[in-house]
């Protein structure tokens, strides 16, 4: 089971980083959104630094959304998903592996580069560290919630927009606690961080079971 998991993660990471993959793409998209918001709001650094954690988190949500439509669809189309269905490992493990690889290719780079992009919106060092930490803990929840939508829409040809409509309501709690945990002036930010971790774990369980159930239904 562990071997299946690791093999799948390695395969998906290789697919994401090689030609035609979307690995670096979401990072560039993240940068685009962070750059776009000051153009809309005006160059007021005080305002930007106050809403900085929110900008980074919303950019994170949008960046997670863009790669999602291919998460299961590519494998559904070329038949690899049918082979994974036949594998002796539980299908939930397959989903977990694919979601983990997706997070390693999109969520983790966002969290790692968040301190750098935070400088663009004039975040204080304390806020930079907290926002990066909250993104590191919270973005897996976004990916797992997204995996449910991706699994439900795997057989829809133009599923990207449908996925966004399905999963954004599921991401609302993560966004609330993520932004709260990133704001060092918030007295309850430590509390928010623990709730964020709880959300990641709960979404992980629900996401893997739900997505696996949806994909099993798709193969019938």
């Amino acid at each position, binding site marked *: 089971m562990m071997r299946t998991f690791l093999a799948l993660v390695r395969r998906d990471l290789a697919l994401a980083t090689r030609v035609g993959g979307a690995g670096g793409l979401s990072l560039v998209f993240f940068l685009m959104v962070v750059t776009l918001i000051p153009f809309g709001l005006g160059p007021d650094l005080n305002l930007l630094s106050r809403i900085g954690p929110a900008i980074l988190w919303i950019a994170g949500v949008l960046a997670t959304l863009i790669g999602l439509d291919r998460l299961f669809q590519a494998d559904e189309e070329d038949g690899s998903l049918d082979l994974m269905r036949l594998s002796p490992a539980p299908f939930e493990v397959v989903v977990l592996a694919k979601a983990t690889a997706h997070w390693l290719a999109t969520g983790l780079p966002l969290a790692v580069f968040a301190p750098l992009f935070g400088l663009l919106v004039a975040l204080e060092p304390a806020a930079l560290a907290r926002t990066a930490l909250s993104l590191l803990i919270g973005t897996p929840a976004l990916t797992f919630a997204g995996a*449910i939508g991706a699994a*439900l*829409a795997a*057989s*829809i040809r133009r*599923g990207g927009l*449908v996925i966004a*409509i*399905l999963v*954004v*309501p*599921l991401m*609302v*709690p993560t966004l*609330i*606690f993520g932004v*709260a945990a990133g704001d060092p002036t918030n007295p309850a930010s430590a509390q928010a961080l623990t709730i964020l971790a709880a*959300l990641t774990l*709960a979404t992980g369980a*629900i996401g893997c079971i*739900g997505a696996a*159930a*949806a994909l099993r*239904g*798709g193969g*019938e």
Partner: protein
Amino acid sequence: MLTRLANPATFMRVSGYALPVLAVAAALLGAYGLYLAFLASPADYQQGETVRIMYIHVPAAWLSLLFYSIMAVSALGTLVWRHPLADVSQRAAAPIGAAFTLVCLVTGSLWGKPMWGTYWVWDARLTSVLVLFLMYCGILTLWRALDDPGRAARAVAILTLVGAVNIPIVKFSVEWWSTLHQGASVFRVGGPLVDPAMLRPLFAMALAFTCFGTALHLAGMRTEILRRRVRRLTLLQAERLERAAA
């Protein structure tokens, strides 16, 4: 009782009797409730006449949740027992629930303007109802996007159940986030805070809404069953024509 009703033929027969009864009950109760709400109940000492919006707003809010619960139970029926009627029930409930949620949001915002001075605030309850509405939209979207009925039933059932877990989490998180709307004032420990003169029209309207919603749900289910029969018959007809041609 329920197992017997779960047979589509029995369901069609029983619902055929129940539907007109429920529709008439909804009309009578609605007329009585509206009479109480507009003529026979006092204006609020603070809110004046605008308090009468409550008699539409609150029942709509209750029903928006009731219909999501109906959908969640039906989703279990689809996933666990694979019962076709459960899918029909869920399919009929979704647009009705979405409509009641929209009515709740619109009347609430019309009530908010004179009371809070604004049509919309990002308060906990308003936000969680808005998210509920978005989830209804997602469910309706997914249905339209999947063309195979069996697959759509399963996918929507999974989404509904995930949403049922999500609703309390959203409610909890937005309450943590911001609160302006008044707390529960009818179903609470220590009895209702609302005056009996206002409770009576409220309950009459709630009952009328429930009868109305149930009647719509039954009508929707009957239509859906008939639509599936037509689809099956059309497919059979096409097969027969193909065989005759060959």
